[in-house]
């Protein structure tokens, strides 16, 4: 999930100030505020061009907030009333950030949708003034220009952006369950065309500067500069300002036209969009697609379509009104609260709370060049870590090296990096069969097969060659780290790093500490994970840690449900309709039936009753018949290269038939099946918090959503309990407990929450 900062929620204006703010009063304000000196804005005049520099104090990013908004309006009023000034340049003094949107905390503080609607309307008024300004305003964009920042920029007459990787434009509101509430839904379609505007607003994707230029989102690009007489970033901003000033002058002198020449395709598109029938078809198409993808679980995308439609079909006034109302409504939805919670959690899990490590990892060694090992290598080398990839055979090593190369080459095809950058990144990787160079390794991550004796052997071999300071990290999904560490000479340097496959796509990293793991070891592991671009949760050691342990009871329930005769396809559809990105049966195939069996046996033994339900015999028989899931071509489904639609594996019928159990009709409705799965998951997650495996509910939510695909619209198991109500979940668990037994017994912490409704995981 991209989720970045959001929205032009433009600070709260006290009603009185807005009301009594006609012309001259404002000027008085401005006069007096000059004495107060502005904190967010630095305002200067160069010739006849006003240069407004945004620089929010004490923050790495500029966010549109109350103070910034009022200062900005003051300055603009000064500009508009000055005879000397003929044009304006709007720029940020922070390299890497134009305006990243608004502080979510501010939005969260609102209690009613009316308040939020009002904020949106304030923004509408200000941005309309900018749009209608007779003195041309040039937005000079360097760094992130997102949400409200973008809406501000597209209200200006001209946009110039630096062409670097940090400069991205986008409307990520949808990722937070919102819509662009400061005129974005109305201005974007006019600027880039309806289809492109839908794409931006419905996916929330970040658009790089060069792409933005092609789309017509920005009018000019400025190349970033290298070192000169000042640091590159500083000089680049200065240069951007110089260029923007020449364009501002040109616009004021009418030497430059703010209108853009449209290409043929664009002209055709806009012609097609002028035909009502075509428009209706497009709305319909987009809506269908959104409904299919969101399964009706996310209200924001549909509202975005609706608001855009209103603006185009009924005129701007209706459009802006609708935008502000829907914006207010969305801000109050559970989905939005859940998504914002995830955003906050993600920010939290991108920080190293264990402090700066004593020694930075520069040399990394990975044991095992399989899917996991190579994946870890890929995300390491492209962050500049010198990485050794070691395997036992040349063939396996070659496959691993090829996987890394392919991952990088795919980026070249997508133009994210150049072929030269690919080669230079790939040169960070050394493939080898021996332990040469391990004496320099700062960290070794083993990703060998999940077998305790093998891991022991590897650990002993490695410890013989690595330096004292080197960390040994084990990538395992279920083997307890403390057991692996028993053969270590230095258990304080042993830690678990549980990556998720495919490593380059999955954002989560679960770091597992034992009682003996030192704090510095943890800090180093987190630092490495962060460098690899991961979102990190740190959990205590225990069978299945956090993620595997939560997933296991749900999987036992999956087996049970299948045994009760529910078709895998139906089960998939039920789980996906609940918001899981992958169906439950498909998930088993993806993970690998053998792996699932392995974990189920292990954890089943440890946890006894609570992991009861399905019969593990099902998995055993599948393994014995070679139905290992996608990797073997057969599992619950049949997988064929190049065939997209999956067919059920008919050979499963006999296995399922032999293990068939009679369903309990009172708990077998579609909804019950969904909740049987989810409540077991949630109950186990809360037990992990209760037992101290988890340090915070936020980490639990992030782990569940980013690692296991728990429905993002529910915000994770803990947020789900807060929003849905602990009592309701306990009621459901009790009902299922009555039918099936102890595996559904709610844990004490959940019961505590149910009995005192004020108790919440998130305050």
């Amino acid at each position, binding site marked *: 999930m991209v989720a970045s900062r959001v929205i032009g929620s433009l600070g709260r204006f006290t009603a009185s100030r807005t009301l009594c703010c006609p012309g001259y009063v404002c000027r008085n304000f401005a006069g007096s505020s000059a004495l107060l000196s502005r904190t967010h804005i630095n305002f200067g005049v160069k010739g006849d061009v006003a240069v407004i520099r945004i620089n929010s104090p004490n923050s790495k990013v500029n966010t549109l907030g109350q103070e910034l908004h009022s200062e900005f309006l003051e300055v603009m009023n000064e500009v508009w009333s000055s005879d000397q000034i003929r044009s304006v340049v709007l720029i940020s003094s922070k390299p890497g950030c134009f305006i990243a949107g608004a502080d979510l905390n501010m939005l969260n503080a609102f209690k009613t949708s009316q308040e939020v609607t009002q904020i949106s309307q304030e923004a509408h008024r200000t941005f309309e003034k900018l749009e209608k300004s007779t003195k041309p305003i040039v937005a000079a964009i360097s760094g992130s220009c997102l949400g409200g920042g973008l809406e501000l920029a597209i209200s200006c007459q001209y946009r110039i952006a630096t062409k670097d990787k940090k400069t991205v434009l986008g409307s990520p509101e949808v990722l937070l369950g919102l819509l662009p509430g400061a005129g974005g839904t109305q201005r974007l379609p006019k600027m880039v065309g309806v289809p492109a505007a839908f794409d931006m607003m419905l996916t929330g994707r970040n658009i790089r500067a060069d792409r933005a230029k092609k789309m017509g989102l920005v009018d*000019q690009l400025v190349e970033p500069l*290298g070192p*000169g*007489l000042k640091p590159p970033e500083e000089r680049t901003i200065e*240069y951007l300002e110089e260029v923007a000033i020449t364009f501002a002058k040109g616009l004021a002198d009418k030497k430059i036209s703010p209108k853009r020449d449209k290409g043929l395709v664009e002209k055709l598109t806009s012609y097609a969009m002028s035909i009502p029938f075509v428009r209706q078809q497009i709305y319909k198409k987009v809506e269908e697609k959104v409904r299919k993808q969101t399964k009706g679980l996310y209200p924001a995308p549909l509202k975005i379509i609706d608001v855009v439609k209103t603006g185009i079909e009924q005129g701007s006034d209706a459009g802006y009104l609708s935008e502000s109302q829907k914006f207010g409504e969305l801000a109050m939805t559970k989905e939005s609260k859940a998504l914002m919670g995830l955003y906050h959690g993600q920010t939290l899990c991108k920080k190293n709370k264990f402090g700066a490590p004593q020694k930075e990892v520069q040399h990394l060694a990975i044991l095992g060049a399989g899917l996991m090992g190579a994946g870890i290598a890929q995300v390491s080398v492209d962050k500049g870590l010198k990485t050794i990839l070691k395997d036992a055979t040349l063939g396996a090593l070659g496959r691993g090296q090829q996987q890394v190369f392919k991952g990088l080459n795919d980026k070249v095809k997508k133009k994210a990096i*150049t072929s*030269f950058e690919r080669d230079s990144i790939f040169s960070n990787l050394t493939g080898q069969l021996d332990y040469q160079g391990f004496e320099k390794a700062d960290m070794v991550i083993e990703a060998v097969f999940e077998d305790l004796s093998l891991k022991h052997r590897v650990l002993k071999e490695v410890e013989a060659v690595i330096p004292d300071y080197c960390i040994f990290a084990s990538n395992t999904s279920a083997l307890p780290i403390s057991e692996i560490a028993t053969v270590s000479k230095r258990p304080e340097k042993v830690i678990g790093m549980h990556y998720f496959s495919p490593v380059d796509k999955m954002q989560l990293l679960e770091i597992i500490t034992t009682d003996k793991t030192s704090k510095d070891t943890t800090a180093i592991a987190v630092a490495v994970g962060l460098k690899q671009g991961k979102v990190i949760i740190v959990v205590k050691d225990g069978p299945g840690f956090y993620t595997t342990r939560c997933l296991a009871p749900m999987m036992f329930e999956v087996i049970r449900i299948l045994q009760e005769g529910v078709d895998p396809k139906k089960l998939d559809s039920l789980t996906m309709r609940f918001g899981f990105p992958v169906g439950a049966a498909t998930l088993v195939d993806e993970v690998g039936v053998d792996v699932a069996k392995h974990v189920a046996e292990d954890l089943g033994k440890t946890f006894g009753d609570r992991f009861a339900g399905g019969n593990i015999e099902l998995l055993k028989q599948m393994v014995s018949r070679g139905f290992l899931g996608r990797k073997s071509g057969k599992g619950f489904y049949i997988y064929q290269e190049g065939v997209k639609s999956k067919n059920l594996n008919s050979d499963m019928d006999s296995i399922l038939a032999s293990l068939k159990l009679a369903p309990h009709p009172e708990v077998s409705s579609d909804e019950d099946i969904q909740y049987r799965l989810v409540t077991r998951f949630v109950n186990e997650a809360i037990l992990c918090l209760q037992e101290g495996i988890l340090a915070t509910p936020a980490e639990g939510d992030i782990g569940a959503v980013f690692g296991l695909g728990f429905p993002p619209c529910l915000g994770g198991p803990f947020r789900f309990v807060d929003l849905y109500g602990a009592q309701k979940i306990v009621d459901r668990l009790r009902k299922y407990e009555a039918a099936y037994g102890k595996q559904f017994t709610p844990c004490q912490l959940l019961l505590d929450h149910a009995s005192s409704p004020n108790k919440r995981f998130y305050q």
Partner: protein
Amino acid sequence: MTSFLTYTFKNLPSTSNWALRSSIRPLSCSSQLRAAADVQTKSKKTLAKSSVRNIVVVDGVRIPFLLSGTSYKDLMPHDLARAALLGLLHRTSVPKDVVDYIIFGTVIQEVKTSNVAREAALGAGFSNRIPAHTVTMACISANQAMTTGVCLIASGQCDVVVAGGVELMSDVPIRHSRKMRKMMLDLNKAKTLGQRLSLISKFRLNFLSPELPAVAEFSTSETMGHSADRLAAAFAVSRLEQDEYALRSHLLAKKAQEEGLLSDVVLFKVPGKDTVTQDNGIRPSSLEQMAKLKPAFIKPYGTVTAANSSFLTDGASAVLIMAEEKALAMGYKPKAYLRNFVYVSQDPKDQLLLGPTYATPKVLEKAGLTLNDIDAFEFHEAFSGQILANLKAMDSDWFAQNYMNRKAKVGVPPLEKFNNWGGSLSLGHPFGATGCRLVMAAANRLRKEGGQYGLVAACAAGGQGHAMIVEAYPK
């Protein structure tokens, strides 16, 4: 003395500028030292070292540098190189069999004559017993050819080396696309009609789109002009400054041409055409005219234009390098010594053209000289903006400290000693041949204007650079 001073500098703990200044003042005020300085303005009489052979450039020539697409357009690169070699033979009367080795630099290679040095040498009538090789190092290819020769002589492998460079931008290898090439090669190998037909059936129209060579960095895909424009912007070099510098180059070149100072130029009778007698790219214009041009690379607001950039040029050059004792034994009166030289390289993206900034202090340090010791600066002018950016970088303590790992700036060469007879902007810049022109300009200027040391510096694609000290041969 200065070397003594710099030495002291280096050894000072120097935590603050103040400390530096105060400790230096007593030194420079010391009367003995000043007396010594008065007697002798140069810090060193000569750069000769007892342990190293003295290497001299006997003389050097070049055929006139022409705008590409003019009189040389129907020739091949080795024709130009051959003309330069013949000119050198004529100018120096060196016996063809005395030469031990021949080296040429070139950048855009003609595939048929990939070792253009050998083809040109054979065509110029040199003995076929003289080995020849071709080097490439972008705009400092000829410099590389010369220094390779210097090394061969210094190590005692050779006594007489001819070094030169050539570039023909009128004709560049435009290739079939990779797909087309692959199909043609496969067709070659196909044995049966069926195989051929099946190969041909894979043909698509886009196979025919050709591959053009670009003056662009392979590593960054950025054209050099684009990089120069960014460099100029990074150092805040204005369009006007660039135009003024370019105008200076053209005016000085024009003057030098009219006064007959460009004595390295030899006539070239082009087959089927008139004899070419002089460079044809020198076109002094007015600042008003130049201001009208639109930017050539960063549109529409960049500062690098056709008028303040060097143009695509055809040309060739050659020099005769010898061990001093050999030259003297043969009765030559050499023009100059070739002394210390350095190659440097830096970031090919943001510092592509800053080679001279890095190379100058390094070569001075190596030779134990300072900027004040240099009487003739010959810097390769790729773009006005590049020259001015280099001058600003050399004048910046901040840049020296943050990017060059030096305590202080090297200083800026005085313009009255800088490219006095024009430069690449006006005379032209055949990539592979410019290096020899720079060295001969420095040597000839030292003879004409007086003075002992010349400094040659150049930038090159790939983010590389070169500098060399040329010492006047005593008259």
